C-alpha cells in the first residue's frame, strides 16, 4: 500500500477526491485504488495467503459443527460443559474489549481530551471484541438459534447469565451507535453524525453501567460452581470484582497492542495528529493500566488472605497461579513503572502485550485449566476446537483490518471546506506526509504474520 501511495495513489480521507469530484462508494471501498490495483496489493500480501489457508481449513470445520453437532468438534463433556470456545472466546475476549467504555468514559465523562486521538480505536476494539465473543458463544450454544429466547420467550431473572445476555446485547447496540459516527462520516451522512453526537454522553454513561455489570457478571458466573473452580481462582465475594478490575488493564493494554501492530503494518492510514500523539497517548494508557494492575493485585491478595488460602500456594496449582500472576501482573507492573518513568515506549508496548496474554491465561485458568480440580481427568481440547478458535480469531483480525483501512479511526475525516482549504494551500505535501514510514517500534512478540502483512506491499 505504501508503494502505491508513493507512486501517486491517494488515500481516502475526505468526501472529495479532487476539488471538483467526490469519491464514489466503490472507490471508498477499494481505498481509492482501481480494482486491479486493489486486487494486486491484496494478492501481494503474504498475510492474506496465510488467512486463506486458515479459512480453507477452518470454515468447513465451522460448518461441520452445525451439521454434525458439538461432539464432532469439541471435547466438552458432561464434566466440562464449557470448553475452549467459552474459555477463550467469551471469557477471554470480553475483558479485552472493555476499552470502549474506558476510553469513552475518559474522553466524554472525565473530559480527558488528550486521549481523543485513540478514543475511536478504543470504541472499535470494544465493539469487535464483543461481537466476536457473541460469535464464539453462538458456536458453543447447543441451540444457537434460540439465543433471543432469554429476551422474548422465557425469562430466568435470577440467573447471572440472564443479566449477561441482556447487558451484552444492549451494550452491543450502544457500541454500534458509538462507532457509527465514523461510519456515517465515511459514507457521508452528516445528519447521523450529529444525531449520535447529541446522545454521546448518554451512550457513554449507559456504557459504564452495562460494562461494570456484565464484566462483573462473567466473574459471578463462576460463583455458581464454588466447589469446581480452584480456590485460588475463586472467591465468592470478590469474584466479580476480580473480573471487573482485571478488565481495566486488559482493555487499555489491548488498545496499546492493537495500535502497536497497526503502526507497524498500516501506518499509511495514520494522520499527522495520530502519529504525533501516539506515544503520548500510549504512556497515558499505560499509566491507567498500571493503576488497574495495582488494584487488581491488591484485591487478589486480599481475597487469598480473606479466605486464608495461603496453603494452596505451595501446591502445583499454586505455582501455576504464581506464574499467571507474574506474567500478567507483577512483571508488567514493574516494567510499566520503569518504562513510564524513562519514557521507554518499546518496553511499555511489550508489557502491554504481557498483560493481554495474562488476562487470557487467567480466564483460561478459571474456566478450563483448573476447573474441576477435584476430578482426576483434565479436559484437553479437540484439535477441531482449536481450529475453530483460530479461524474465528482470524475472521476477527480480517474484519478489524477491513474497518481500520477504511473508516476514520486512525485519521480525522476532513469536511468539504477543510478539504478545499488544505487543497488550496498545499495539495501535495499533506498527502505525502501521510506516507512517511511511521516510527519503528521494537515490540516483537505478537503475530509476526501481522507485521508481514504490509511490508511486501509497501
Amino acid at each position: 500500500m505504501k508503494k502505491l501511495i508513493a507512486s501517486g495513489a491517494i488515500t481516502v480521507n475526505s468526501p472529495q477526491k479532487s476539488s471538483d469530484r467526490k469519491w464514489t462508494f466503490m472507490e471508498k471501498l477499494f481505498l481509492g485504488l482501481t480494482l486491479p490495483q486493489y486486487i494486486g496489493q491484496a494478492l501481494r500480501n503474504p498475510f492474506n495467503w496465510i488467512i486463506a489457508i486458515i479459512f480453507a481449513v477452518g470454515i468447513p470445520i465451522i460448518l461441520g459443527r452445525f451439521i454434525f453437532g458439538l461432539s464432532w468438534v469439541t471435547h466438552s463433556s458432561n464434566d466440562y460443559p464449557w470448553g475452549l470456545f467459552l474459555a477463550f472466546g467469551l471469557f477471554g475476549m470480553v475483558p479485552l474489549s472493555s476499552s470502549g467504555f474506558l476510553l469513552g468514559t475518559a474522553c466524554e465523562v472525565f473530559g480527558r481530551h488528550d486521549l481523543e486521538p485513540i478514543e475511536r480505536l478504543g470504541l472499535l476494539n470494544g465493539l469487535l471484541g464483543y461481537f466476536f465473543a457473541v460469535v464464539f458463544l453462538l458456536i458453543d450454544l447447543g441451540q444457537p438459534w434460540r439465543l433471543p429466547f432469554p429476551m422474548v420467550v422465557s425469562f430466568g431473572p435470577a440467573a447471572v447469565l440472564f443479566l449477561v445476555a441482556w447487558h451484552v446485547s444492549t451494550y452491543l447496540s450502544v457500541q454500534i451507535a458509538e462507532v457509527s459516527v465514523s461510519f456515517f462520516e465515511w459514507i457521508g451522512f452528516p445528519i447521523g453524525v450529529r444525531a449520535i453526537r447529541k446522545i454521546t454522553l448518554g451512550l457513554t454513561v449507559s456504557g459504564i453501567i452495562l460494562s461494570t455489570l456484565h464484566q462483573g457478571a462473567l466473574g459471578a458466573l463462576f460463583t455458581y460452581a464454588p466447589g469446581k473452580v480452584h480456590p485460588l481462582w475463586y472467591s465468592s465475594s470478590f469474584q466479580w470484582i476480580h473480573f471487573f478490575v482485571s478488565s481495566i488493564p486488559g482493555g487499555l493494554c489491548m488498545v496499546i497492542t492493537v495500535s502497536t501492530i497497526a503502526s507497524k503494518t498500516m501506518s499509511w492510514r495514520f494522520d499527522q495528529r495520530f502519529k504525533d500523539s501516539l506515544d503520548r497517548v500510549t504512556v497515558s494508557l499505560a499509566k491507567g493500566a498500571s493503576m488497574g494492575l495495582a488494584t487488581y493485585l491488591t484485591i487478589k491478595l486480599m481475597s487469598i488472605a480473606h479466605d486464608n488460602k495461603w496453603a494452596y500456594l505451595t501446591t502445583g496449582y499454586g505455582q501455576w497461579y504464581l506464574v499467571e500472576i507474574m506474567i500478567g501482573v507483577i512483571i508488567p507492573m514493574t516494567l510499566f513503572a520503569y518504562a513510564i518513568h524513562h519514557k521507554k515506549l518499546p518496553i511499555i508496548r511489550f508489557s502491554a502485550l504481557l498483560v493481554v496474554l495474562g488476562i487470557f491465561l487467567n480466564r483460561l485458568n478459571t474456566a478450563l485449566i483448573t476447573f474441576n480440580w477435584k476430578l482426576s481427568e483434565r479436559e484437553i481440547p479437540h484439535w477441531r476446537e482449536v481450529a475453530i478458535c483460530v479461524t474465528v480469531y482470524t475472521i476477527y483480525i480480517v474484519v478489524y483490518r477491513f474497518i481500520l483501512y477504511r473508516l476514520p479511526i486512525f485519521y480525522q475525516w476532513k469536511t468539504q471546506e477543510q478539504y478545499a482549504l488544505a487543497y488550496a494551500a498545499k495539495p501535495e505535501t499533506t498527502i505525502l506526509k501521510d506516507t512517511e514510514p511511521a516510527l519503528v517500534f521494537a515490540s516483537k512478540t505478537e503475530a509476526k504474520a501481522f507485521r508481514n502483512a504490509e511490508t511486501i506491499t509497501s
Partner: protein
Amino acid sequence: MKRRDFLKGCLIGGAAASLGAPSKSWAVGSFEGYPDAMGVLVDTTRCIGCRSCEAACNKEQKLPEPDVPFDDTSVFEEKRRTTEKAYTVVNRYETNDGQKPPYRKMQCNHCNEPGCLTSCFVNAYTKTKEGAVIYNGNVCVGCKTCMVACPFNIPAYSYSSAFDPLIKKCIFCYHTRLKFGKPPACVEICPQEALTFGLRSDLIKMGHERIRETPDRYIDHIYGEKEMGGTSWLYLSRVPDDQIGLDTTLGNEPVISNVKDFLGMVPMVLTIWPALFSGIHLLATRNKDHGDEHHNHSEQEDGKK
C-alpha cells in the same frame, strides 16, 4: 453540547440501562422446600449393585440401548457418572474395613434450591410442589450453565445431536408417575428395598430412626438433609460419605447464596452510576470554555489557533 442535550443524553442513557432492569427482580428466597415434597431415602447399606434400577429407568424414560447390558458387573471396574443415555448409575466403592464393598446409586438429587434452576437464564427448570426438578427442553438454549452450576455434576448434555441437543437428567419420573402420586420406576423395582419413596419430612425421620435403632450399621448422618440447602433424595451410609463418592466439602448453603453478593450489587450500580458519572462529567467540564463543545470541533479549532 447544550445543557438540554446533556439532560436528554442522560435520559437516553438511563433508558438504555433500564432495559437491563428485569435483572433487578431476582428472587432470592430462604426457601425451605415445599412441605409436600416427596423424596427417596437411599439406604446404601442395603444396595447389592444389581443395577435393576438402571434398567427400570432406561425403560421408563425410553432411553437408548445401553452400551453394556444391565446384568454385566464389569461396569463396576470404574466410576461412572450420569450421561445422556443413563439418568442413573450405580457405582461400587472400595473401603478398607474388610467388609463387602458398598454400592451407591446416583441420579439427580432434586435439590430444595437447585443450582441448575437458579443458573438457567431461560428458566427451563421447575421445582414442582411434589419435589421433582423437571426440565423444559423447548426453551433450553444450550448454554450448559446448569451443568456448571449443579454441585453434584448430574445434568448431561446430548452433544452428539446436531439439531436438538438437550439436557438429560433424572426427572423423578414426574410426567409418568410422580404427578399421579406413584413411586418412580427405579424405586419400585428395587429388590432390596434400598430405595424408600415418601414425604421428604417422613424420610428424614425414618432415616434417623434407622440410625438410632442400629447404630453400628450407619454413620450418624443423612446426606442430603442439609447439604446444599437440602435435597429430596437422601443417603444413608455405613462408611463416611466421602468414601462412597459423596462430596462432603459442599457445605449447607445452596448455590444461590454464593451469587447473592453479586446480584445484590446490581440495583446499586443501576441507580448510583448514572448520577455519579453525570456529576463527574459536569465537574470535569465546568471550567473549560469549550467544555460543552464536541471534541472534534474543539480539537480542530485548537489546531488552527
